[in-house]
């Protein structure tokens, strides 16, 4: 069981309110990702749930029970930190066993669970090493191991992959997703990386300045962003947000069109421009296009390797059925 409910939760540091009143329900077994730019309050929110920070007003319920005033240890949650936060003076085995030792479990049971977690996480050969003798990915696995042995009501991840290199990050992303499927436990995952959010989440919570901008499944957010902020934040490369005459034409203050929803055509086309930077990835090519008559630079994603380079003229056709329209207040029309 691991349903987490935030009711009218606020957080202030001195005079500054970083989280205005906020309501959120995370269902049991759900993989929820808090995503947003740096300083949006996502880590603070996670720390409030963990109990590492006290909330200023409001209530937090875990499995229907008020946990607002419970100390972190009593909330039944496990956390994986960005810096791994392993105990440097203990072996991997002792690190993983630490929460069980704190729970005063029987040594045989501790050993059984540590061995179990180590085999799930491929750490069996490293149990007697110190964290300092491990690579970044292995350290992160130890941190996850330390979390799973407790069999917590929910896992909290605070940007756990941001210290890893790109290749390792993709691998660990998969491992965490698989772990979620295997354990079927509630997970809350904080990241600023929208790719991580899109690939891992059942539910994404997009935050900006402590305010929830939108909650939904990755595809809901991709297909129907509630406002221009979510539209610009979810999706890579970013959605083109165009204002002015081109938008008014469609009866909106701002129109949004994703780079993958603009077709490159031989000639004609709604917009014509000059290719600025062309990023050839092999499978795709991203063009950044200037001089279209629009105020904004347009980003286009073409499938495959399209042989246009800097300075070439390009003809573009946005798919009208994929166009998003926003009002002057930034909200979806």
């Amino acid at each position: 069981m691991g349903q987490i409910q935030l009711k009218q939760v606020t957080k202030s540091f001195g005079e500054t309110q970083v989280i205005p009143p906020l309501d959120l329900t995370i269902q049991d077994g759900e993989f929820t990702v808090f995503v947003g730019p740096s300083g949006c309050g996502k880590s603070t929110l996670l720390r409030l749930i963990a109990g590492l920070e006290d909330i200023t007003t409001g209530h937090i319920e875990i499995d229907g029970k008020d946990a607002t005033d419970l100390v972190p240890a009593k909330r039944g949650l496990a956390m994986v930190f960005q810096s791994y936060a392993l105990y440097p003076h203990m072996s991997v085995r002792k690190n993983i066993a630490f929460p069980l030792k704190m729970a005063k479990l029987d040594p045989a049971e501790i050993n059984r669970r540590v061995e179990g977690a180590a085999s799930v996480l491929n750490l069996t050969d490293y149990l007697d090493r110190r964290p300092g003798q491990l690579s970044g990915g292995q350290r992160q696995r130890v941190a996850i191991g330390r979390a799973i042995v407790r069999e917590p009501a929910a896992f909290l991840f605070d940007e756990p992959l941001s210290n890893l290199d790109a290749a390792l990050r993709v691998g660990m992303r998969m491992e965490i997703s698989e772990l979620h499927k295997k354990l079927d436990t509630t997970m809350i995952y904080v990241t600023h990386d929208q790719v991580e959010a899109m690939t891992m989440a059942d539910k994404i919570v997009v935050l900006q300045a402590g305010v929830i901008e939108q909650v939904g499944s990755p595809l809901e957010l991709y297909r129907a962003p509630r406002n221009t902020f979510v539209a610009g934040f979810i999706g890579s490369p970013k959605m083109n947000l165009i204002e002015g005459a081109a938008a008014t034409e469609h009866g909106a203050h701002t129109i949004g069109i994703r780079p993958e929803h603009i077709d490159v055509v031989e000639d004609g086309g709604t917009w014509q421009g000059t290719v600025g930077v062309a990023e050839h990835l092999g499978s795709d090519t991203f063009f950044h296009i200037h001089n279209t008559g629009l105020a904004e630079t347009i980003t286009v994603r073409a499938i495959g390797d399209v042989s246009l380079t800097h300075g070439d003229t390009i003809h573009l056709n946005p798919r009208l059925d994929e166009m998003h329209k926003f009002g002057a207040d930034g909200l979806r029309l």
Partner: protein
Amino acid sequence: MARAVSPRRKLMNTTFAWAIGLLIFFPILWTILTSFKTEAQAIASPPIFLGFDWTLENYSVVMERSNYGRFLWNSIIIAGGSTILGCIIAVPAAWSMAFVPSKRTKDILLWMLSTKMLPAVGVLYPIYLLFIQMGLLDSRAGLVIVLMLINLPIIIWMLYTYFKEIPGEILEAARMDGAGLKEELLYVLTPMAIPGIASTLLLNFILAWNEAFWTLNLTAAKAAPLTAFIASYSSPEGLFFAKLSAASTMAIAPILILGWFSQKQLVRGLTFGAVK
């Protein structure tokens, strides 16, 4: 990045460092040498450096005349006791200031340090009276308390700087893992700060061992440590430099040996966290 140092420069630096080291060590060396001279050679002018008749007579006289073992035992109890007691108080105090600071933490730290600026003699009278009232005069327990209090600001300051070096996330992880305050201190913080704690305790032990003002003023016979043992040789009957030197050598020998064997630990602790 290491700077390139020419061999000539390196030689000069080394010579200079040794010269300073010898300068600091010379009084100790002279005391040790004097302890092996006769009283006449000890005050000879010009002074004799090595060419004297080596004798152990001073040591046997000193051993005969006073109970060295009792002074030594008092020193060990007083320095050890004040160090342990100080540690028990200073670890939680430094923990709270390093990890749950309040607006006034910096002020408290400065205030504690400011007590070290007060001349000790300024509080001698009130403490002396308190000791009489409480029956602590010439007792080891009294000296343990006074020396602990005197060194406490330094222990707290040192531990505070070591604790500040420990990432807060590790302690938060311990809290998430179900550790209460006691477990957090016992299993996580203390083992991680061991180099710092060890050097703080060593330094405190040395300071307490060498402390003379309070030990001389608050003891008579029962609780007198080695400092009082040395002082007893500068008596009104006249100065006996050779015997005084023998007594001094015997008093400083234990701490010198301790310092020698723990120098690695001391240096490591004192520079702990200076280089990441």
